[in-house]
């Protein structure tokens, strides 16, 4: 059977929808204008299901599934919004705020930050889990960019764009749990990286104020991620 020609029909919030085999729930939901909140997902990069913000309910299953990596299946009944999902999504955002040191008022990404936007959209007015206040580094060794780990949400967009699009694979993930960090090369200062081409792609896909251009003041760092769909589309037409 030719997989790409197979059409699947299923339901999202009681709406009958169809999808090509292999399409994710998120993909189909977006085609129909149904908003599922996402953070680690970025169109043009391989989805990895890291942040869990896009969790949805499937009727008849107790387990919640991340819409960005779950493929639509025949007859599936997906629920994208419910009090339970809302509660989980809020908690995920709160955990991200509590895990590092987010001080929006003095952050270069204030007013241009996807984490901040998600918090507002989900009605997060305060953080119900205790703040951890870890002591973290700022790597300002790169000539043009800096990495402030106090604001990282470990979405790995930087890792993926550098590997999949730039082909440099400068970024990687090290450690587990609360010790988890994104690192450059073999955990050496970014400025001493042998692989980084200084293309700036990681800076502009980073959803937070972690990776930034140098020389911007509070609230000045506007990301320009528009290049990504363009680049992936161009590559698609070549192959």
């Amino acid at each position, binding site marked *: 059977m030719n997989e790409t020609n197979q059409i699947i029909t299923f339901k999202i919030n009681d709406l009958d929808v169809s999808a090509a085999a292999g399409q994710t729930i998120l993909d189909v939901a977006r085609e129909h204008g149904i908003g599922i909140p996402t953070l680690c997902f970025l169109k043009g990069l391989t989805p990895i299901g890291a942040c869990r913000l896009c969790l949805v309910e499937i009727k008849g299953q107790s387990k919640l599934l991340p819409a960005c990596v779950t493929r639509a299946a025949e007859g599936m009944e997906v629920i994208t919004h419910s009090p339970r999902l809302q509660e989980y999504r809020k908690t995920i955002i709160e955990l991200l705020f509590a895990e590092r040191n987010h001080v929006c*008022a003095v952050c270069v990404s*204030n007013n241009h930050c996807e984490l*901040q936007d998600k918090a507002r959209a989900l009605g997060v007015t*305060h953080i119900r889990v205790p703040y951890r*206040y870890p*002591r973290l580094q700022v790597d300002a060794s790169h000539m043009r960019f800096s990495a402030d780990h106090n604001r990282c949400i470990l979405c790995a967009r930087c890792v993926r764009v550098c590997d999949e699009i730039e082909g440099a694979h400068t970024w990687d993930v090290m450690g587990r749990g609360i010790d988890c960090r994104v690192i450059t090369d073999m955990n050496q200062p970014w400025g001493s990286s042998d692989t980084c081409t200084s293309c700036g792609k990681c800076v502009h896909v980073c959803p937070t104020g972690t990776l930034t251009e140098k020389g911007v003041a509070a609230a000045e760092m506007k990301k320009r991620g528009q290049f990504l769909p363009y680049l992936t589309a161009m590559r698609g037409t070549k192959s």
Partner: protein
Amino acid sequence: MSAKIRLATVWLDGCSGCHMSMLDMDERLLDIADKIELVSSPLMDVKGFPENIDLTIIEGAITNEEDLHKVLGFRKNTKLLMALGDCAVTSNVPGMRNTFSIDELRSRAYIENASAEQQMPDAVVPPLLSRTRPIHEVVNVDIYVPGCPPHADIIFYAISELLAGRMPDPAQMGKFG
């Protein structure tokens, strides 16, 4: 209209920007003024804690023993407590000291950066708590208004709702920062 609402505003570890933002309600302050009785605020010289407060609005995080004393005292005497602004809600900039030990902080402030009289204070200055905390980590908070500072429109909305006997909608509360 029934009896006036007894209102207290409190200034803990914050920059006073949230109180300034309250003043930025401008002429709308006059609408509110008719409906409230201000029983304590940084603008007044009130000792101790007034009793039977209806609404206490707190700006600032809890950083030292004096802040802690105030927050406990006001909570005991108020029906509703509003955390106003990021310092009260998240600990914000005052909380940036939390990744350092008190010894490191004190030595930086009173020894390393002091050009004269290098000595640790042992009186007058209230002792620091081990960490700067948002209000809700210490006492129960009923209304959260994030923002640094929160916009005057949002403060006006929150207070108006409370004066009308409704809880403000958290979805209208703006954002951090």
